[in-house]
């Protein structure tokens, strides 16, 4: 066969510019999914301080919750979770063959809703640290 030119990584990285809604949704869902599973591992690790006793547990939680950075991360976590949930629901509908024509709209709706819910929840999360 003739030689042929493989555009390799250059192409792969350049391609995000031509991404369409469905592809962004896929990227975001992947990303949020990974964050969530990562969080689940940490979460269980943190909670298992309970094995070392009541005080160890309370100190860890309160200590962590006292840090502004943790509060901010929590807001991020909420955003991630909300997006994953909303887009997850969108995907479930797509799997059921419902609303395929509106796949772009439903992705944008997920984004907007995620933004709104996150913003609305900021006071709750921040209260007490600052």
């Amino acid at each position, binding site marked *: *066969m003739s030689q*042929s030119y*493989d*555009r390799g990584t250059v192409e*792969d990285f350049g*391609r995000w510019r*031509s991404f369409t*809604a*469905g592809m962004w949704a896929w990227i975001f869902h992947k990303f949020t999914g990974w964050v969530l599973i990562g969080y689940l591992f940490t979460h269980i690790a943190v909670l298992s301080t309970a094995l070392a006793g009541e005080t160890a547990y309370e100190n860890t939680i309160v200590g962590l919750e006292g840090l502004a950075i943790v509060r901010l991360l929590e807001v991020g976590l909420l955003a991630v979770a909300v997006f994953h949930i909303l887009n997850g629901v969108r995907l479930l509908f797509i799997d059921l*063959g419902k609303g395929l024509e509106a796949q772009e709209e439903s992705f944008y709706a997920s984004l907007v809703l995620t933004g709104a819910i996150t913003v609305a929840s900021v006071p709750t999360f921040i209260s007490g640290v600052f």
Partner: protein
Amino acid sequence: MSTQHEHTDDGEPETPGDRRRAEKAARAAEREQEAADAEPDLGDDAVTLKVFRYDPEVEAKAEPRFDTFRIPFEKGMTVLDALIAARDTYDSSLTFRHSCRQAVCGSDALFINGRQRLGCQTQIADLEGDVVRVEPLPHQDVVKDLVVDMEHFYDQMEAVEPYFQTDETPDDDLEEQFQTPENREKIKMSTRCIWCGACMSSCNIAAGDNAYLGPAAINKAYRFAMDEREGENMKEHRMELIEQENGVWRCQTQFSCTNVCPKDIPLTEHIQELKREAVKSNLKFW
């Protein structure tokens, strides 16, 4: 297709023929450059084409580059028309596939302004921006200029047993199989595929994983699996093909295949329907 090389007229590296060829190549490159540089006054109504160039054998093109062509615009001009004009007036070595000019042969799926489209089906007037940027289909190896290697695409198409098979054929030469108009309608969209490869090129999953059958092949499988004439036993066999590891499950509903398909085939929908069918047929065994 693997075929052995038979070197006939280019034996030793330094024959007069080779020299002439090299000189000729240099001249051709020069001419191209001139053509690309010279900006004839074409008035306001000119199209600027930026075209991907690559040729492993020609030194000036061995490292991929973009050439710019200015083409006088005509009403109703398609990207394919513009490419033909560029080739016929400026640089006859500009290489791309084309044949039917009417979106049925699937030869000229290209990456035009960041999206997979058929050159012949894309009106320049409908494109945004001043420059029309034409590249070969992403994720396929480039053979030369805008020509990509389609072998892998064909292999995937042929991997799904893309031919009608039925439990029983009519005995008589003149006996037709019946099919309800509803069933024909059901498979109608899926039968429209022209094997252009645009969908495969647009799918990130297919890009990252050559084993994935890809939207076109799955759609082909759908076309037969849903055809009531094939019969129940065949359908089971079809579902097995579709359900294999590299089949439908790899699809992550990115929809880009559906977005780019020049024949408007609802690929994602077909893939999703097959996933549900597969689950249903599996449930029976539980």
